[in-house]
């Protein structure tokens, strides 16, 4: 069975009941169903990913890059093969050189803020961010500001949860860097990244994308998006913890000084200095997350096998269903933050519910096996903008279907009865 997605591309619909069989966490035999609606914080892992790592550890583990013996050689091939797979997944023109493994998206952005500031920026140079950024795309720049005196400007968020681009040309005046999330982890807003990147380039600025919430859910091509750098993280895209990715244009990566120093990132070390290695190793100091890279490549295979367009279609369908269902059940008692048009959103729904504190919502929902996140979602400036301290947030991935939304609605009804 095929259907057309919004782009007119045929996709095979996800069969969630089959998908859930691949995820051990949904097959625990304690008799309680798990309604996991917190994939924006971290996704669950299919058995294929766990097996890829176990198989690696059980047959081939050795440190990479320096061994002549066959398991070390094979480990290196698997690690570098994972790099190529993951680079290709985001459309990297030169996946083997431009894909850098870090420990999470946060390190990817710190690498950039550190290397770019030391390598390119001077006191007073301007970095443009947005009010809806995750702390991962705020604090590294605030630290660079403290240390080097750069100036930070913010694109504000309008009342519908979109970026307010009225004064964008003014903001980009003399900017050296624009760094923006592709999808907001709170509002769900999918930002017009191509347009922003083009504008940045017109002003001579570098365009950085925080793809932590985008890459796991939508087909990604760094060239089409017009980006110079893209950061994302393994654990939100069915991969293991302990691994993140930075993709960057070769010319730019080549021009930057290294971030951390140590083994593998050098070609020579003397008592008085060192010579950095070639790309991508220049940015990978010490023993890398080998098993994690292999696990993430297995996750990418899993996602590609389902098809990123099919995944997007599935999430759009769920989003629409959730919007309708929440509205018809709770009307004005429940306020969803962010764009009304689901096509402008990732699979993330942050909401306020009847003055019930998000902690209490989450607690009551947990009693019904419904997992939602409650808090500031590492976006305190955005929270201030919204005038609240916290929200509850439900988010989807491939293993969710309407039954999760129904469970959410039922549990919310219980919470209302309890605190009402």
């Amino acid at each position, binding site marked *: 069975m095929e259907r057309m997605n919004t782009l007119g591309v045929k996709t095979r619909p996800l069969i969630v009941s089959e998908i859930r069989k691949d995820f051990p966490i949904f097959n625990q035999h304690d008799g309680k169903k798990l309604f996991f609606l917190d994939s924006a914080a971290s996704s669950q892992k299919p058995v294929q990913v766990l097996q890829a790592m176990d198989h690696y550890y059980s047959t081939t583990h050795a440190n990479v890059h320096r061994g002549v013996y066959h398991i070390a050689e094979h480990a290196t091939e698997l690690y570098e093969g994972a790099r190529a797979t993951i680079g290709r997944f985001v459309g990297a023109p030169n996946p083997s050189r431009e894909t850098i493994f870090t420990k999470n998206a946060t390190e990817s952005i710190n690498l950039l803020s550190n290397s770019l500031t030391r390598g390119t920026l001077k006191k007073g140079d301007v970095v443009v961010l947005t009010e809806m950024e995750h702390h991962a795309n705020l604090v590294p720049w605030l630290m660079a500001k403290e240390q080097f005196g750069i100036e930070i400007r913010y694109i504000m968020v309008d009342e519908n949860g979109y970026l307010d681009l009225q004064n964008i040309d003014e903001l980009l005046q003399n900017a050296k860097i624009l760094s923006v999330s592709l999808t907001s982890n709170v509002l769900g807003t999918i930002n017009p990244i191509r347009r922003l990147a083009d504008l940045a380039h017109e002003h001579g600025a570098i365009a950085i994308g925080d793809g932590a919430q985008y890459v796991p859910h939508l087909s990604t091509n760094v060239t089409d998006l017009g980006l110079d750098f893209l950061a994302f993280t393994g654990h939100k895209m069915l991969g293991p913890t302990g691994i993140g990715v930075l993709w960057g244009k070769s010319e730019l990566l080549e021009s930057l000084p290294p971030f951390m120093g140590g083994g593998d990132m050098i070609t020579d070390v003397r008592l008085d200095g060192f010579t950095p290695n070639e790309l991508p190793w220049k940015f990978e100091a010490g023993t890398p997350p080998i098993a994690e890279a292999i696990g993430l490549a297995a996750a990418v295979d899993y996602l590609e096998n389902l098809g990123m367009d099919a995944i997007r279609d599935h999430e759009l369908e769920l989003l629409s269903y959730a919007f309708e269902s929440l509205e018809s059940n709770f009307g004005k008692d429940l306020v969803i933050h962010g764009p009304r048009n689901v096509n402008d959103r990732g699979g993330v729904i942050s909401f306020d519910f009847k003055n019930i504190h998000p902690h209490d919502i989450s607690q009551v929902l947990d009693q019904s096996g419904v997992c939602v996140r409650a*808090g500031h979602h590492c976006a305190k400036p955005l929270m201030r903008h919204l005038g609240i301290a916290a929200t509850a947030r439900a988010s989807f991935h491939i293993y969710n279907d309407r039954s999760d939304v129904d469970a959410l609605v039922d549990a919310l009804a219980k919470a209302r009865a309890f605190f009402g």
Partner: protein
Amino acid sequence: MPGLEDLYREIILDHYKNPRNEGIFPTPPALKAEGHNPLCGDELTVYLLLEGDVIKDIRITGQGCSISRSSASLMSVAVKGKTLQEVDRLLKIFKSMMSISTNSSGEAEVVDPVEYSERELGELIALQGVVKFPVRIKCATLSWNTLVQALEDRAS
């Protein structure tokens, strides 16, 4: 898994919906301290009117979940009119009640276990069930920590 009724006792819901001693006092004469729980964004401000070593009156404002709000309200009732020594004893008892081997953040907040009778705790005992929900302990202790801070600021 412990049930909701362990956490949300009737007294708690009552104090949540009808918080006692809500409001502010001008400073001075009142002592004031702000507390916040960085993980969830909860914020509380505690105002104290001292007379000698007696807490003559107390006001609390802020935003937070049912546990942090009701705990603040319960605390305000418990400490009003008490001497600082009595408050110190209550604090020790309360912390002792809230202490578990590892709390959710794994902090080894070393709390000396204190012997106490239920009578001493009064209505505060309603918060006993929070211990079964380690993440929420910080909610319950926020107001007490803020109270301590207000008193410490005075001392210095």
